């Protein structure tokens, strides 16, 4: 039994939420507690980064506590490179999201902050769990706070969006749970490494892969199970949209890489060409639909469908370059789309509309916001020198090596991304400044700039020198791909990597 930095990183936000239950409903106190807990979690995750051994490809820094010994389920946590970078992304963004929300959330701020902190713990659990039952519990639990965040602090049509979000994702999650129970029935344990070592028949693999795939595909979301996303994004409050796009969607692509691929290697190889096709459709279709949106938040929501299509493409290219880059792209999408949703939120607070047609010529009035918006758009459309490129380009290049047709078709996504992002930018920020509303829009405040700057710094830093990020991720990805590549996974019951 051991408690270390992972448990600490997970516990701190939840602790903050608990503290909130006992403090007075004073916005100042709530703000401080929220920020303190989330920053503490970030610091704890940095400790994790320091302790992490980059050269080691397996799960490390194991922490295990007894949970439900009767059925062989334990509270075990560990990280590999992939989970580590996603944990860092999460803990990095939550304080920024909270600070960004402090200006806009007026109704029961305490509940909002508590929900966010609980959500953070749940997501961190998803990334760190090495027990499948624990993973499923965290995976499902993320729905609860997110449901309330959309349903309570959301927009006009929040009820429909919240229910749709909840049911859609529950559906997938339940199927995965069935799959997990089946795996348990075969091994008698929920331990990840033990299950990973299990040799499954091809038919079993196909069914289980399908169950896991559906759960994760809905989360990502992969075409055609993406339609909950635009509604959820549009109705969610700013912080909810940022977290949803930046972190929650990654649970899907993370799940594919952590569970679907290594657990069911034969099925993965068999399904991969189909998934490449679906990813390409998602990229082009999501971009085209984004192009036609009149609501800027919906536009970015559909752009997420396209961008996550690139991640799925890289994952199923089953090529070290592409698959590693797809993990990097998860981080990149989190940063750039997160920043875009922040900017949309800041603009919404000023104008109370998200209709692109309501804006025009804003660059003259709000040059700082326009500058950030353009830079982040450029990151999102994968301009070299910024982070999006170092993810997208190796994904395409790697995919081309295994499936040239998919690499070529997906490359057209680059044109469409430029089209919908720059067209939106032009309609909102360029042209003559018309109308009193546009005339009186105010530029970003220091607090808002302070939220954006850390993200922009990372956008540029990763864009120029992504090597450390790739180095963190690559060994873990290699390990997954090695297992997928092996025709028959070696049978090693009670795997060498036991936690206890």
């Amino acid at each position, binding site marked *: 039994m051991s408690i270390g930095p992972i448990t600490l990183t997970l516990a701190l936000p939840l602790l903050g939420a608990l503290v909130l239950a006992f403090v007075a409903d004073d916005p100042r106190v709530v703000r401080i507690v929220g920020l303190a807990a989330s920053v503490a979690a970030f610091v704890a995750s940095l400790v994790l980064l320091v302790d992490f051994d980059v050269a080691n490809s397996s799960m490390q820094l194991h922490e295990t506590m007894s949970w439900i010994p009767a059925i062989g389920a334990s509270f075990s946590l560990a990280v590999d490179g992939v989970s580590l970078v996603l944990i860092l992304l999460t803990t990095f963004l939550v304080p920024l999201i909270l600070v960004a929300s402090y200006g806009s959330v007026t109704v029961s701020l305490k509940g909002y902050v508590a929900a966010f902190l609980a959500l953070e713990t749940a997501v961190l659990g998803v990334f760190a769990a090495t027990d499948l039952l624990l993973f499923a519990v965290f995976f499902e639990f993320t729905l609860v706070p997110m449901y309330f965040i959309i349903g309570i602090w959301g927009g006009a049509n929040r*009820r*429909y969006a919240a*229910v*749709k979000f909840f*049911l*859609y994702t*529950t*559906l997938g999650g339940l*199927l995965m749970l*069935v799959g997990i129970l*089946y795996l348990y029935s075969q091994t008698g344990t929920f331990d990840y490494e033990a299950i990973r070592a299990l040799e499954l028949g091809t038919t079993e693999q196909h*069914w289980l892969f399908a*169950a896991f795939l*559906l759960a994760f595909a809905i989360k990502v979301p992969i*075409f*055609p199970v*993406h*339609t909950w996303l635009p509604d959820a994004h549009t109705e969610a409050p700013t912080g909810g949209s940022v977290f949803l796009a930046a972190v929650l969607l990654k649970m899907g692509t993370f799940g594919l890489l952590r569970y679907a691929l290594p657990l069911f290697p034969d099925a993965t190889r068999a399904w991969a060409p189909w998934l490449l096709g679906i990813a390409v459709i998602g990229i082009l*279709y999501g971009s*085209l*639909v984004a*192009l*036609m949106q009149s609501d800027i938040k919906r536009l970015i929501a559909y752009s997420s469908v396209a961008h996550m299509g690139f991640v799925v493409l890289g994952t199923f290219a089953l090529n*070290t*370059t*592409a698959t*590693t880059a797809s993990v*990097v792209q998860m981080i990149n999408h989190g940063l750039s789309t997160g920043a875009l949703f922040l900017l949309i939120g800041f603009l919404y607070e000023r104008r109370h509309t998200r209709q692109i047609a309501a804006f025009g010529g804003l*660059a003259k009035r709000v040059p700082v916001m326009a500058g950030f918006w353009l830079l982040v758009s450029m990151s999102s459309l994968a*301009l*070299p*020198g910024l982070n999006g*490129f*170092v993810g997208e*380009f*190796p994904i*395409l*290049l*790697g995919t*081309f*090596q295994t499936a*040239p047709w998919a*690499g070529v078709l997906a*490359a*057209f996504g*680059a*044109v469409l991304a*430029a*089209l919908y992002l*720059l*067209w939106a930018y*032009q309609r909102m920020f*360029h*042209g*003559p400044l018309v109308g009193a509303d546009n005339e009186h829009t105010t530029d970003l405040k220091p607090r808002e700039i302070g939220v954006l700057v850390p993200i922009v710094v990372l956008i540029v830093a990763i864009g*120029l*020198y*992504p*090597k450390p990020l*790739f180095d963190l991720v690559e060994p873990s990805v290699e390990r997954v791909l090695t297992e997928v590549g092996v025709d028959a996974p070696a049978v090693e019951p009670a795997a060498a990597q036991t936690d206890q």
Partner: protein
Amino acid sequence: MTFLLAAEDLAVTPNEVVEATSGLVGLAWLIPVVPLVGFLLVLALTKTLRESAAFIAVGAAAISFLLSVGVATQILGDPATYIRPIGTFIQAGEFSVAWDLYIDQLTTVMLLVVTGVGLLVHVYSLGYMHGDARYERFFAYLNLFLFSMLVLVLGSDLVTLFVGWELVGLSSYLLIGFWFEKAEYASAAKKAFITNRVGDVSFMVAMFLAFSVFGSLAFTDVLPAAGELSSGVALALVLLLLGGAAAKSAQIPLFVWLPDAMAGPTPVSALIHAATMVTAGVYLTVRMSPVLVQSVPGMEVIAWIGIGTVLLGALIALRQDDIKKILAYSTVSQLGYMFVGVGVGAFREGIFHLVTHAFFKGLLFLAAGSVMHAMANRSDAWGMGGLRKAMPITFWTSAIGWLAISGVFPFAGFFSKDQILTEAYNHGYFAIWLLGLLGAVLTAFYMSRWFFLIFLGERRFADDVHPHESPASMTAPLIVLAALSLFGGLLNFEHSGWLYTFLAPAVADIGPIGYEAAGGIPLFGLIGAAVVAGLLGIGLAYLTYVRGDLSRGRMLEPIRGVPAEVLERKFYVDDLYSLVFTRIGGRFAGAMVWVDTRIVDGLVNGAGAASLAFGRVTRRAQTGLVRGYVASFLLGALVLVGFVLYSVR
């Protein structure tokens, strides 16, 4: 004088590849970094320094230029391909890219052109942009452009070249849309970026293909190994590279963005959309010349695209009245000549034309800016006339630019264009040579029209316009560029002249292709034909626009009626694109939205209505098999989702 033609299979020792961290080459990283720092400083200090911030940008350009001169002296003294190691950029699996710099003779020529013309345009802008509300911002963007373009020419890898390639696209976007308050300017900026992105897809696929063949995209790996390419892959690579180059360098069918790009301030048109950025496609193809020579059919496509663009640009320029638009189509056309050069195996002549074009077209654009400055921003050539008296420096420098582009001996453009055409003939491309001569006649004609309508004759503008000569900050760059346009021919005064020899180790040897001349016309005959073509064009324009009755206005134009309509509508290419992409593409995207809301999402919502019936069926599905449960789970959950969504709507 002697116009000797070198034996092309003359053995050239290829460059030795040398890693260098010392000397001026070791400092080469400063060449792009200084303008980058300038960009950031100007942005940061705009509020503090106000207009003086512009001098930071000018200083940065000057430092880059001096460093480039330093690097050039080192290359001259000790020719080699220098690699300046910087560090890793991307390392993902087998795919590895470094930020290292690649400096050889070709790089040096590009460095000098970019920083030299760049510096002159910076200085010119001090006067031209004076009084603009975003004066400092303009200089920041100019420095950003310089940085981007220098990354492009210094990159040691196709990927880092591509980084610069895209960043110049961003700078171009920012500068075309500099006056974004005007909706059409903003549209022009977006159009430029998107059109280039279309070419980028081609360029990217070229890199994917090259990587799968070579396992690397570094020039030091790709270029020496190019000989191993199979003819099919080589052809594919050449055509894909051409796709990228055609967008950046405004060739058929992707030239449509460049004329619209004239929405940007005139110094930008001179620097980015004439002298430097648009030549990046030429640079790319010449840099990849070892790959090009593996596919002569691919090169022939380049040559035909080039000559088609020469004629298309020149024809459209005949009926443009905006003095910047004429120059824009002229640029399209002149870039076509460079592509002809590349396509017929005259790589070095292509680069020579790139250099002289940077001089005389940069000059002509800056002169046009000076004219517009004097004419209260008017740009209609028919509304000018007689400006030679009011602005003598602009007049005389323009005259040099005009004679240079028209191919009059001994101005710079004569040598470079003539050498491309001569090489086309000597390499067996008779039709291209002949069409190139036709292009030369047209060029001389439309440029003479431009020059005569602006400067000669009587004034045709209203009395409230008081043209005046521009300030020294603007005329000084004109004089420098005029001198270069006058004497630039000396760089390669004869076939196989100095520049030709200098560049030899940096480009592919075309000896193995075994070109044969198209016929028996001797060199003097070829040169004579080029001289006659230029003079013919000038003469015809003289008869029309100087001796003709200018009071008849546009009735004087030799091309009228339907052909004029076709030219004014730019062969309907823009209309075709707008039909296909905006109307039909828009409909298609609209259809996708319909599918998304009605079908993909509609199925989820609609499932609710049928849920009860569904429920009865699923009850029977208790088969005891796990897979059966999985299936029923899916079905049941779908029903549940649908039902609840149906009820909360």
